């Protein structure tokens, strides 16, 4: 079975966002908390966290974990809601 049009677009999207030097999932895990706190505080992305932003574009699993972390932080900040 050939790959679908949607799957081809997925490949093209990650190729577009691929950089020569990238961080891996373990480095992302250690720094994603800082990235999430800044994001939830509405701060611009610090230069030192651009690699996290790029990794989240490329890696769907780390992106899912980041979104889940934002949910968790909201729940911890507002336990009543």
């Amino acid at each position, binding site marked *: *079975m050939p790959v679908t049009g*949607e799957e081809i677009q997925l490949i*093209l999207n990650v190729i577009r966002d691929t950089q020569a030097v990238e961080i891996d*999932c373990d480095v992302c895990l250690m*720094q994603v908390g*800082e990235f999430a706190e800044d994001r939830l505080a509405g701060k611009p992305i610090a230069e030192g966290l651009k690699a996290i932003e790029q990794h989240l574009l490329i890696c769907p*699993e780390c992106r899912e974990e980041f979104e*889940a*972390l934002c949910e968790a932080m909201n*729940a911890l900040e507002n336990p009543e809601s």
Partner: protein
Amino acid sequence: MVRDRDNDEWIKSLQAEGPIRESALSDLRELLFVGLKSALKSRSDFIDPMLDDFLQDSLIRILEALDQFQNRSRFVTWATAIAIRVALTQLRKRQWRDVSLETLVADTNFEPEAASDELAPDRRELVEAMYHVINTQLTEKQRIVLLAEIKGMAQEEIAAQLGCSRNALYKLSHDARFRLKQELVLVGFDSKSFAAAFNG
């Protein structure tokens, strides 16, 4: 009542022994319980009874990684990120445990003519060039990883079936993506042309 602490106090308490450590572990467990429950609510394969195992494994992983905490965020945020990695990794493993990587990729291929009908003529050239690079410039392992990833297979499961670590898998995937990008740029395509081959 659960007590939050500043970062230094969390680290010192968790590295201590006796009641101070037990109290910190108990409070951290409570906070992770609230965080994980909310973090996982959108997963249809998550049910509450799984939480105990997730929390137990998360606390072990957090204690093992304490010396990697760089004080760049709140300690609880950092610990919650680890707990989410632990929990989602286990859910993804369950989801993919009966799927053979070999079968998954054997059923799929990059046939140059396959997507042509869906494409505007000016974009067919890009997809054909991409297929050419995939079929002639990537290794068999790189092609397998590329296919498995676009099928959404869990990285832990791909790595396990290939017999490598998640980070080694990431490097394999990065090398494939970067090679593909380099080759396409060499023949005249740019980021703009990658953006919307199928979206008009």
